[in-house]
């Protein structure tokens, strides 16, 4: 039920009309207009003067294209720093940083095998600030992968994927895939040894369904792997066609898809009433940490005048607090939410800037198809998969990622328990299970690496074993089965799909971390295990 509260000033006009600057009678003749030009121009651009009341600010949020992605009021629960940690905002800010630096890099970069490497050298050596431009782009891309995964962890552990946000979780997974795809396609563009051989590994993974079709003897009829590789590279090997394809994917197709999905992602979370929060946050008055005095911390209040106002703009279908029956725990988005977002954005910007000052983005020798890098490593976030690719390109590169993505995507549809949302690990048991399963998954993943390293794998004992067997039975697939079994065990013990979902996500996170760390730090030439890269045979 919506009740129209008493307005602060009542001149009978609707808010929107009243706030418009009045322009009539402003003609002062040629000279007068010329003198007034700075003011009139400014007013024509920014049609409102800087709003000076909460209502005016709300008005501005409502009527501004860029600000209206926000609701005019934000729930205090959403602003708790340790609830979201600003991760979603950070991801968005990183996209902005990447877009700006990416566009600037595009001005200098030439996507041809002849010029690509040289143009990167020019960016590094002669473009003003070019080296930092490139560093910022590189580290922001890496930071984005981390931030997106952490954001996903936040959503998973707080149960924020639950109804009505199930599909937004799936869109989020799509954004994760796009983030990784953008990173991967960007990897080839410098056309150095690192790029060339990492993409060669990637292209061979694309061709890996041949492991299955070869085993079935149908590769000559249906060569899915070959087709995928052909589509990706436009040729048999990484070369000019591949470079152009990756360039177009990286600069046009994937960013377009990313922006579109980001729009949907934001729109849906806005339409779903902002961030998920427990039901008590709508019932029990919350302390407003932003209000300066005791008075302002009283519940039922939002507006600094002490009078509650509801314009049309504050109405969100089905999510409106029932006035005078429940506390209003919202604050105006301007300034409180914007402040929080700006802070999160500035923090991640500072981190990226600092990294860019301290570490230069790597650029190895010009790509040389005759001299393979050993080890040829994919970007770090794929090294967990490359760990499994070492056994089977199909299992590590296609089978497992697909199953993992499907598994993660199914979480909100299988866990439909009506728990409280927006609470880390839901309850004490959830926290315990998250920790326990994380430790279990760490140990299991470490074992999945340690056992083959110490005693070998099937091929060690049965040299003639068909590859298909290893494609199906390898440390990666077995680890996945162990994880699934563990989650089913949790389900049986707790009789709770939510607890099982927490366990599943912990397993995913721990497995990802262990395999990635092993692939990044402990793997050397020929993918052999080394405790330190200083033990690598020198080349």
């Amino acid at each position, binding site marked *: 039920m919506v009740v129209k509260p008493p307005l602060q000033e009542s001149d009978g006009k609707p808010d929107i009309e009243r706030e418009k600057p009045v322009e009539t009678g402003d003609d002062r003749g040629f000279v007068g207009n010329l003198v007034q030009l700075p003011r009139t121009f400014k007013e024509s651009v920014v049609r409102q003067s800087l709003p000076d009341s909460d209502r005016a600010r709300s008005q501005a949020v409502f009527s501004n294209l860029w600000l209206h992605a926000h609701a005019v009021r934000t729930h205090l629960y959403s602003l708790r720093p340790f609830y979201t940690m600003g991760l979603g905002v950070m991801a968005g800010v990183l996209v902005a940083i990447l877009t700006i630096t990416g566009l600037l890099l595009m001005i200098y970069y030439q996507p041809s095998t002849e010029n690509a490497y040289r143009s990167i050298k020019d960016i590094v050596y002669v473009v003003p600030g070019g080296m930092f431009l490139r560093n910022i782009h590189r580290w922001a891309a890496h930071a984005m992968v981390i931030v997106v995964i952490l954001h996903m962890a936040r959503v998973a552990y707080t149960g924020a994927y639950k109804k009505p946000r199930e599909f937004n979780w799936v869109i989020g997974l799509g954004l994760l895939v796009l983030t990784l795809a953008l990173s991967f396609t960007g990897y080839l563009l410098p056309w150095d040894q690192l790029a060339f051989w990492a993409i060669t590994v990637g292209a061979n993974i694309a061709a890996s369904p041949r492991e299955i079709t070869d085993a079935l003897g149908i590769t000559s009829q249906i060569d899915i792997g070959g087709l995928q590789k052909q589509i990706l590279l436009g040729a048999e090997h990484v070369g000019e066609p591949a470079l152009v394809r990756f360039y177009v994917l990286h600069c046009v197709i994937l960013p377009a898809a990313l922006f579109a999905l980001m729009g949907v992602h934001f729109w849906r979370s806005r339409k779903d009433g902002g961030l998920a929060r427990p039901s008590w946050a709508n019932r029990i008055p919350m302390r407003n940490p932003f209000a300066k005095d005791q008075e302002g911390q009283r519940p039922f209040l939002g507006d600094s005048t002490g009078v509650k106002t509801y314009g049309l703009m504050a109405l969100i279908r089905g999510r409106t607090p029932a006035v005078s029956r429940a506390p209003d725990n919202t604050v105006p988005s301007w300034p409180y939410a914007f*402040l*929080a977002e700006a802070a999160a954005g500035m*923090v991640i910007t500072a981190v990226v800037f600092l990294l860019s000052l301290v570490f230069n983005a790597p650029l190895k020798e010009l790509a040389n198809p005759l001299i393979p890098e050993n080890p040829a490593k994919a970007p770090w976030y794929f090294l967990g998969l490359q760990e499994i690719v070492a056994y089977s390109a199909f299992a590590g590169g296609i089978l497992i990622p697909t199953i993992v993505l499907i598994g993660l995507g199914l979480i909100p549809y299988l866990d439909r328990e009506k728990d409280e949302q927006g609470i880390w690990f839901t309850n004490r048991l959830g926290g315990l299970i998250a920790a326990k399963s994380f430790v279990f998954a760490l140990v299991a993943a470490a074992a999945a690496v340690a056992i083959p390293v110490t005693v070998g794998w099937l091929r060690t004992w049965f040299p003639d074993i068909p590859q298909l067997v290893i494609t199906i039975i390898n440390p990666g697939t077995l680890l996945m089965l162990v994880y699934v079994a563990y989650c089913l065990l949790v389900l049986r013990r707790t009789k709770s799909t939510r607890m099982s979902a927490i366990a599943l996500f912990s397993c995913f996170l721990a497995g990802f971390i262990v395999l990635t760390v092993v692939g990044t730090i402990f793997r050397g030439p020929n993918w052999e295990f080394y405790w330190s890269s200083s033990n690598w045979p020198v080349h």
Partner: protein
Amino acid sequence: MRYVLVVASVVVLVLFGIMVAKSSYLTEWREYQQEYQSMLPTAPPEEGQVCELAQEFRIKQRQAVVPALKVMDRCVTCHLGMDNPLMDGAKQPFRKHPGDILTSHPVEKFGCTTCHRGQGVATTWRDARGVDVHWDDPLLPTKLIQSSCGACHDAEWLADNGAPLLAKGAALFEEHGCRSCHKLGGLGGTLGPALDNVGLKIPTEFSFTHVTGEHTAWNWLAEHFKDPQGVSPSSDMPPQDFTDEEMDAMLVFLLSQQANHIAPRQYLPDDYFVSRARETNSRPYSGEQLYNMLCQRCHGSGEKGRFDPFFAREMPAIRSQRFLETASEKFIRAQIGQGRPGTIMGAFGSTSSGLSEVEFDRLVAYVKGGVEDHWNELEPPPAGSAVKGKRLYTKHCEECHGKAGVGGSGNQLASRTFLKAATDGFIAESIRTGRPGTKMEPFALSAGGPLSEQEIGHLVAYIRTLSPGGKPK
């Protein structure tokens, strides 16, 4: 939240400021240019003299761009005094380019890296030098710079025209008989790799596992010359005892070997074609030239056997009187043409060594030296028993020729190419009378040795069994 925002914003601003400062003001090249500017005079030292003045000097990046050579060299951003006479003998990077090479090879036409190598696009010294950074073509040390002349010019012409070290290296290459194992220009042995493009090899093509110094091609080559097996464990190359100057000459010569790199037509000097023409005109080589190029490194003059301490074996006296009296030209042809597979004696037939038919004939004729042989009159020994022969072999031959003829300090006998070409008479005669001038003594009773003619027959029968198919057709 407010404080987080303020602090983070200040940090971002400060970091951004540092980035701007570092990329626009605190650059290595800018400091050099400021220093150079301070070294320039404000007025010409002499009345009417034209020279670069401090007030006219602009601080900006400079580069030499030569599209035809794919050169974009920013070296001149810091090496500012290249053509400034006032900078003669000044400290680096401002020193005037030594010599008058820039008059014939102006920077605008040739760039810098065409001769000096290094990373021309870079604007810091470390990156421009290109050693231990990710760059395929590190800066050449000054002492090896003459190698770049050889990329276009004729080595002989260069001897009197600015690159004596290169000419010396070319001479050393032939003197040391490097061609015995290495091909160059298609001519040479097969034991080692061909060297036509060794000057183009990039550091990553070498294995630096056992190299102690810098990861550059020249350092690899230098360390490899001194200790071939230390640098490349499977190498068969004997260590080379070069003086420092000889070492530099050899490195210069090797680095000038860039067959696959041909400068654009308009850049090629006349003597480049002279060089090509001389190469063609000097063929076919004489037998003696070929012997010195290909055989002399191991066999010496060939008149006497010589013990090679590195290979720890006697090198056969292939031009000793006794050998030539007993060996037919056909036999010598086969031995040179097919070599002794499995030993360091490679095949030098025209298909494997790059000799023309004429040259191969000349080499064989030179080795044979016109000595009359009585190959066909050599008397075969009486038929013997291989079993008895084996016992005799163990007693008399194994010490030098190795178990079952695999070779030791003496020749390998278990060799198909040898046994196919050698008649029973030739083998028997070699045992009977030995090879004067070598460790192979006469073994026949008649010559004061221990073996009867029948025992020699047993030995020949046994030796015949040492290699499958080891019978003359």
